[in-house]
């Protein structure tokens, strides 16, 4: 990785590493909710004859616990600094640097995700594995595909949140957009329940026409080898395509936003 990118990524990592108490509290909360969700889903499975929408016990435990871990890595609930910086006018400092803010934010975000993998992802995953036993992939390549899928999920989440941040150039107050995003991304990404429980047409529409399943359900399905390696590859290709599309949309929206720019309160 070239030095600028490396420096930005490691700065992103260290920015979050300074908040130790928040990290501990976050991992604790994710774990508590992991127990709650896991017991609920397992009891649903028990009453439904051992599976829910084709997921067995270990798959469901994996879906819950790795999902709890991915929550902080993908971070679809946290907004980027961008929106606040647009509102306060600090974004002017971002525009006065010789690098494109899109990339500056993206590399910083990757650093943040790395930190979250090492802390908030590992803790719930380990606790889930000890308390419930997680699904063990049959193929070694699944681990690599899961890593790729998670990276793509981080990037999809980043692009969506960057677009929300850019909307502040027009709206200034983005609370409405944020609330809508939190609802839709939670529901349509498979965070609240596995997407397979939805009617077939709806779940297919979400997978094909929106990037949302790529945020959560994608990496989790890859990990539990749902549909085998073939499906995992399909999921990854779909995610990568969404990353490409969303980055282009971000570039376009940013160009529009900068053209429109009137820095607030100066």
């Amino acid at each position, binding site marked *: 990785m070239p030095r*600028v990118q490396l420096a930005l990524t490691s*700065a992103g990592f*260290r920015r979050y590493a300074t908040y130790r108490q928040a990290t501990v509290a976050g991992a604790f909360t994710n774990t508590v909710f992991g127990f709650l969700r896991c017991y609920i889903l397992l009891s649903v499975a028990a009453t439904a004859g051992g599976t829910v929408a084709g997921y067995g016990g270990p798959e469901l435990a994996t879906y819950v616990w790795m999902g709890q871990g991915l929550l902080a890595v993908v971070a679809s609930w946290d907004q980027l600094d961008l929106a606040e910086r647009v509102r*306060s006018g600090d974004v*002017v400092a971002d525009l*006065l640097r010789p690098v494109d803010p899109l990339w500056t934010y993206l590399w910083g975000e990757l650093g943040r995700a790395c930190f979250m993998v090492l802390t908030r992802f590992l803790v719930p995953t380990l606790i889930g594995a000890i308390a419930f036993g997680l699904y063990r992939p049959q193929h070694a390549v699944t681990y690599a595909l899961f890593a790729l899928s998670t990276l793509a999920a981080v990037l999809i989440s980043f692009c969506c949140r960057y677009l929300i941040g850019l909307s502040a150039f027009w709206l200034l107050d983005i609370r409405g957009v944020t609330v809508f995003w939190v609802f839709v991304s939670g529901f349509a990404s498979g965070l609240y329940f596995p997407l397979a429980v939805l009617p077939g047409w709806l779940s297919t529409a979400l997978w094909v026409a929106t990037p949302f399943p790529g945020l959560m359900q994608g990496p989790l399905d890859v990990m539990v080898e749902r549909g085998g390696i073939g499906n995992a590859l399909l999921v990854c290709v779909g995610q990568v395509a969404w990353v490409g599309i969303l980055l282009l949309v971000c570039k376009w929206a940013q160009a529009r936003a900068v053209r429109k720019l009137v820095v607030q309160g*100066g």
Partner: protein
Amino acid sequence: MIISARGLRKDFTVNRKVGRFRRERHVVSAVDGVDLSVERGEMLGYIGPNGAGKSTTLKMLTGVLTPSGGEVTVCGLAPVAKRTTLARRIGVVFGQRSQLWWDLPLAESFSLLRHIYRVPDSDHAARLKMCSQLLALDEFIETPVRQLSLGQRMRGELTAALLHGPEVLFLDEPTIGLDVLSKQAVRDFLAGVATRGDTTVVLTTHDLADIEKLCRRLVVIDHGRVVHDGTVDELHARYRSRRVIVADLDTPWPDGLTLPGADVTSVTADGHRVTLALDGATAGEVVAALAGAVPLRDLSVQEPEIEDVIAKLYRS
């Protein structure tokens, strides 16, 4: 010429409510035909009342705001079209904005900026060393920016703006909200930058002491237009601001007494205090004449206040 602007304009469209539902669009000119040329190494004070168009001009010069009209080049580049190229050659400090990373220690912000601007290690180290000595950064360089006081942060901002060796430094109210000591530190530092002469500085401020201590040339803008462009002395000359002698006397000032080359502007304290504005004569001549005419107890000579002159300018 490192900065050149001719007929620079910026119009904003604002909607005004008319009646219950109707709105009317009005065009407001924040900057209305500013001509400005700055030579390399110059230190320019750019002042004006709130809303005069200072920050708007600065944004157009740095490329974050597109002018509505006129021509502008900075370092030979069109600022908006070449914003990222220009960014490597200019440094900017907005007193009320921050370019540092909130969560990271100052030292890490600096090293990140080194990578972003691709500054060679040795140049970065040399500039950082100079800034840390002059601005006494050592005591807080490892502190996260969010924990710094305003004065410390501003010293950090100045350093951050200079680490890539910019040709032009734009400072938008760098001393706003600072205590006396921090202001002094910032001014001394900027005076050093000016003395070295390799960086052109454009300074906007409301603190006229900044201007008096730092800038030979002063551009005053009001309602988007340049109303004065010259030295501080020229401004005094233009508004006939005069030095003043205040004398305390043992006996009251005799009615109708006049002195050559000075005007009596007030007689107070039952005639025991007289204020004379110099008008053609030197202070020495007037004091000598004064001492010959009346018994003097005490005496002071006051320089004209730049604030008074600027206030006259804003009001006119």
